[in-house]
């Protein structure tokens, strides 16, 4: 495979870029693979990549019902951070963050990981307490996160409105300098290209419609719109559709799928230097390298697989954005879209084995799994290759809903008294 580098780029420029190879191919499925990964999002493609790279398993098919990267990987607001509260979460997301830092080199694909800092705004005494709790826990876990006063936050992010008179005045902020954004499509493409080069078959337009199990229970393969494909190990990495797939294997999941929307503004010259999020009013914004403000909106209140959402959800998101950044009021929305997010009761993912032998699941990332992509893929590959979880994902098992040992990041940020 021709390396992506400046020299080759210059050479190709001289001959009209005629020499670039396909980044991935469009093979017909083989009858049998060692491992099948269902879902060619960042997590699924990454899993195939790490299986090949670190575990020597290359006879892998990644099955995708649409186009690779077209799920939530292709529709997220790309916020990357690791300043989570619980040890399990900090371990997982920080593992991912470390991998992010070397990902462009590792994949020979510029995923444009940009560590411009993630600012989380505090608007009440309760927010302050909660953020301090995070900052202290992060420090002792070796995760960077620091407290900024309102003025320091404003210096870091000049568009912020820190007026004391605003309805939700900013009382300070937590800043993770190592957080930032990445170019979402490139993540999927980079993994796909490298995985292809190592022999992985990425089969697009191939929907899994059934999961086959032997009479003794273990997985034998999958039914797809391109026929039966066999494998003794199947990993489900299908975000919003994970529960639908698990259902095919007879496993009911603690998951609900909601439409989550995002939007971009028209592109403008650089004006917003970091990522800023306000959980209290639900305002999430950054500016892409191309110039659009990328804004995360909320979920609708009902289950849906439609990849669209309601007008009032967009309104709420923009209400909050303008409350925080009044100068953006005249900016224009260019496009809005939706994704289907699979939400667990404790807002933490499920990564691990399932009650069915040979069946593994990586799901429940909800509104925040892009940031975990390399880490999640890495430990999930381990889980499949060894048939046991990596210690980083051990706590993110399905059993926790039975025994009550939740990793409740949402509850930990409990609402004000």
């Amino acid at each position, binding site marked *: 495979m021709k390396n*992506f*580098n*400046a020299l080759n*780029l210059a050479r190709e420029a*001289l001959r009209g*870029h*005629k020499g*670039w190879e396909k*980044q991935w*191919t*469009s093979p017909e499925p083989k009858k049998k693979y060692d491992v099948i990964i269902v879902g060619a999002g960042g997590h699924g493609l990454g899993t195939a990549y790490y299986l090949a790279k670190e575990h020597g398993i290359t006879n892998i098919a990644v099955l995708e019902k649409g*186009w690779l990267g077209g799920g939530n990987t292709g529709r997220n607001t790309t916020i990357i951070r690791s300043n989570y509260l619980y040890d399990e979460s900090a371990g997982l997301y920080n593992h991912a963050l470390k991998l992010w830092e*070397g990902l*462009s080199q590792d994949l020979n694909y510029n995923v*444009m*990981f*940009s*560590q411009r800092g993630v600012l989380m705004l505090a*608007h*009440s005494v*309760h927010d302050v*307490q909660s953020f301090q*709790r995070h900052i*202290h*826990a992060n420090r*002792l*876990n*070796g995760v960077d996160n620091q407290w900024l006063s309102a003025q320091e936050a404003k210096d870091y992010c000049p568009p912020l409105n820190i007026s004391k008179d*605003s*309805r*939700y005045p900013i009382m300070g902020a937590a800043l993770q300098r190592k957080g930032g954004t990445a*170019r979402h*499509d490139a993540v999927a493409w980079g993994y796909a290209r490298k995985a292809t080069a190592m022999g992985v078959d990425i089969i*697009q337009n191939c929907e899994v419609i059934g999961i086959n199990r032997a009479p003794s229970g273990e997985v034998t393969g999958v039914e797809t719109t391109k026929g039966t494909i066999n494998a003794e190990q199947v990993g489900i990495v299908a975000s919003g559709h994970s529960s639908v797939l698990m259902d095919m294997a007879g496993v009911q999941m603690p998951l609900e799928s909601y439409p989550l929307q995002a939007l971009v503004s*028209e592109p*403008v*010259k650089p*004006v917003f230097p970091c990522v800023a999020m306000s959980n209290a009013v639900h305002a999430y914004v950054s500016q892409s*390298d191309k110039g659009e403000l990328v804004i995360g909106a909320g979920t609708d209140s009902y289950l849906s697989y439609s990849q669209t959402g309601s007008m009032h959800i*967009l*309104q709420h998101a*923009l*209400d909050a954005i*303008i*409350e925080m950044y*009044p100068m953006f*009021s005249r*900016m*224009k*929305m260019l496009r*809005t*879209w939706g994704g289907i997010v699979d939400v667990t009761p404790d807002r933490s993912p499920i990564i691990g084995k399932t009650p069915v032998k040979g069946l593994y699941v990586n799901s429940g990332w909800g509104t925040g799994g892009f940031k975990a992509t390399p880490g999640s893929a890495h430990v999930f590959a381990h889980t499949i290759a060894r048939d046991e979880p990596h210690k980083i994902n051990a706590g993110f098992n399905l059993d*926790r809903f039975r025994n*009550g*040992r939740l990793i*409740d990041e949402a509850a930990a*940020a*409990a*609402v004000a*008294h």
Partner: protein
Amino acid sequence: MSTTPDFRIKGRGSRLGAKPVRFTFDGKTYEGIEGDTLASALIANGVHLMGRSFKYHRPRGVIGAGVEEPNALMDISRDNARSQPNVRATVQEIYDGLKAKSQNRFPSLAFDVNAANGLISPILTAGFYYKTFKWPAAAWDKLYEPIIRKAAGLGVSPTEEDPDRYSNRFVHCDVMVIGGGAAGLMAAKTAANKKKSVIICDENPSMGGWLLSDTDIRIDGKSGAEWAADMVAELTAMPNVRLLTRTTGFGYFQQNMVALNEQVTDHLSRPDPDSPRERMWQVRAGKVIIAQGAIERHMVFPDNDRPGILLAGAAQTFLNKYSVAVGQNVGVYTACDTAYAAAFDLAEEGINIPVIVDHRDEVSEEIQKQADEFGIRIITGAHVSGTSGKLRVNGMSVSKHTGNSDREDFDIDALIMSAGWTPSLHLYSQSRGKPEWDEATQRFLPGVSPQNCASVGGCNGTDDLADVFTEAAKAVGGKASKVKITDDVSTSGGFIGATGTSADKGKAFVDFQNDVTAKDIALAVREGMHSIEHVKRYTTNGMATDQGKLSNMHGLAIAAKLLDKPIPQVGLTTFRAPYTPTTFAAFIGHNRGKLFDVTRETPINDWAVEQGAEFEPVALWQRAMYFPKSGEDMHAAVDRECQTVRTKAGIFDASTLGKIEITGPDAAAFMDIMYTNGWSKLKPGRAKYGIMLREDGFIYDDGVIGKLADDRFHVTTTTGGAPRVMNMMEDFVQTEFPEMDVWLTSTTEQWATIAIQGPLARDIIKPLVTGANISNEKFPHMSVVECKVCGVPARLFRISFTGELGFEINVPADYGRAVWEAIWKQAEPKGACAYGTEAMHVMRAEKGYIIVGQDTDGTVTPYDAGLSWAIAKSKPDFVGKRGLTRPDLVADGRRQLIGLKTKDPKKVLQEGAQIVADPDQPIPMKMVGFVTSSYWSGSLDKSIAMAVVEDGFNLMGKTLYVPMEDETIEVEVTNTSFYDPKGERLHG
């Protein structure tokens, strides 16, 4: 004032006698006439250069005459706070004093240093970002990314708060018509005649659509513009019709909800300050008629982006609607009949048409005949293989498809082009309709409508005007009035994809704004991007501010050809809202500043404001946090308030506490289910602390509840918890225990609640209370009585959240302020004070009382919180009972709520600080808990803290550590009762 040639065609169109209007563009003053768009006025002044492209910074002129415009984007500012980037010059109407600036160029539009990007353009192909900028790793953030970011974006964001108003309106109608062209007007009129309530909107200043651009057609002998004007007049006169011009239907949501955005003032020189700048209409329609029309495509050929090259239909619109000729020597390149009408119209005005190049092999006799009459040469079976001119096109080369040898060059000052018309499927698709490919006409058309809507006219692929009328009327269940149509122009023909041969030099732009060329699309396909979605994202085709209105079909066709697949198999990318970019402000409407969210205030709030209290937000409420005396900071004020309460008394506004009246014969039984402890045996007149769990066993809410009668409870909840508690209770009443005779009424706002706490509390209120004996014996701790205070009906509780003798008086809210002041009159002379939430927090912490949401966080059971005494295990059922017995909830070593004593009593821990057993371990450290509450206690003259710690109940007296950034604080585990542990004071 400019002295450039005047391209105004006097007498063409209906614009004789329009008033002159002066405006500036890049600092230079120009004159246009009323009704001009910025684009038409500039063209009238001979200006075509209006922008620079995104990536290569190529000089660009106007392409279109409407919302499809990708190039002529400008910054329009009334003042600093009212600057608006990326405004389409083709849409912006001019007004006296308008100031327009070109964008994305430095230092000037004519000389842009970034145009040097053009020189390295062979490298800046699709996907170049991904292939490079990775070496060395550190250079990405330090060097490359800043450069890329600097080059990003088109216009400049405003930097000041927007002073304009925006408004919102919900509206319902029987029929919503989007698009006011021939189709839309006919549909609206037919529906209106049938007495339907109708709304019709069009994004333009006047209705009529294409009819305003066509001077040939006659409808009942009237010109298109006259017919449209008459229709508009008739509709305006009908009370059941609302006409909205300058109003874009930008979003089609579920169940026939359509969102419109109306531009109210952007075309006015001096807007009325009371008028909103934009108005959002959220329409719920019985039926939606989509009459969006069609958008013309450009031809994709080498160097098709020089200023002066534009759509033929746009040129025709400029001529017929705005009385402006796009040049004096205008070449034509087309694959569609409509361009001929444009050419002939120009020729009629004496504009030279050196040649019409038709990509097709033949044209109709009719057209040939007309061309001959004008003496215009047509070259068929040919393409434009290149153009010349730096800031304005000045020449074009024409080659026959058969080969390049017979190339001919023409001098021109404008080139108009048409690759045919793309029916606008935007709103149909947004309604979740699936476009269907029509092989015969090579275009996508609306398929089945999933909602109650119909597409009519140009957007439905209906070209013949008579058919349009019939179809439009039928869509609303009517019949079109009979009209006679003559001189309807043929719209046949069209081409999708790149024209010319691979031998042609120059960039053939598919997407102008994003600088996507046919070669970029080819490269993407070559690199394995076989899905049109990948092609889009790899090349950014269709992702610019015009959202591919011109480029999507071409991109698709080029990709399909390379993939050797039929077009419908490759398919379209998804249409998404908004149809055209829409300001954030329009979405927000009134929800700004004070109206961003509700701010709830208690009846006593104003008193606290008058006293100079500092406030804190709690849920939606404003609560007085402390009442500083002059010179006091928060610490001093809180200290004083606490000490005053402990030694004398204090009064506190507790009105924000949620209150629910639970009534009915089964009230107690219901309480037994909802709360962990028992309520049936509680005597009327007594009160009790109650904890409410979620079904999973974790603490959900708490509060003191008074039993007024066997069938009536006065429940209090936390301030923030009131709505969710009410909702959960209702859920249980309605769906789990419908057989219970119990009713819930929210009474939070019926009552103002005033707490009086401290040794003097009884003395203070006694003079004001009638109808109850509040002596210690008759009215012990945890009593409730209905009586009168200050002569008004009251519910009086004897309770304490401070550990002192205390009362809480509930009076009807409108009396709250008066009763408060009456109490204050009693209290102040006795040395009592008003205190706020912060002192309340300190005092309750001194007593070890928890605050749900601070000392508990949704992962804490009542056992963990040391509240096992409040659980009636003997009850057969309560919400959360089963959840509490799950393995992890009964496991050893759970985090439990304990007290902490700092070794240095002066040291106040930070809330949220983490606790470890071994301070010397390396990072990552094993954390055993964290500080939930921590204060300086003036009464105890030392710091106090509460924390949840693993196995905390078994660690009493043990030493733990709180590692801070700069020090490690040693703490001892204690119980949580710091003050008056025996509780003698509250019984006093």
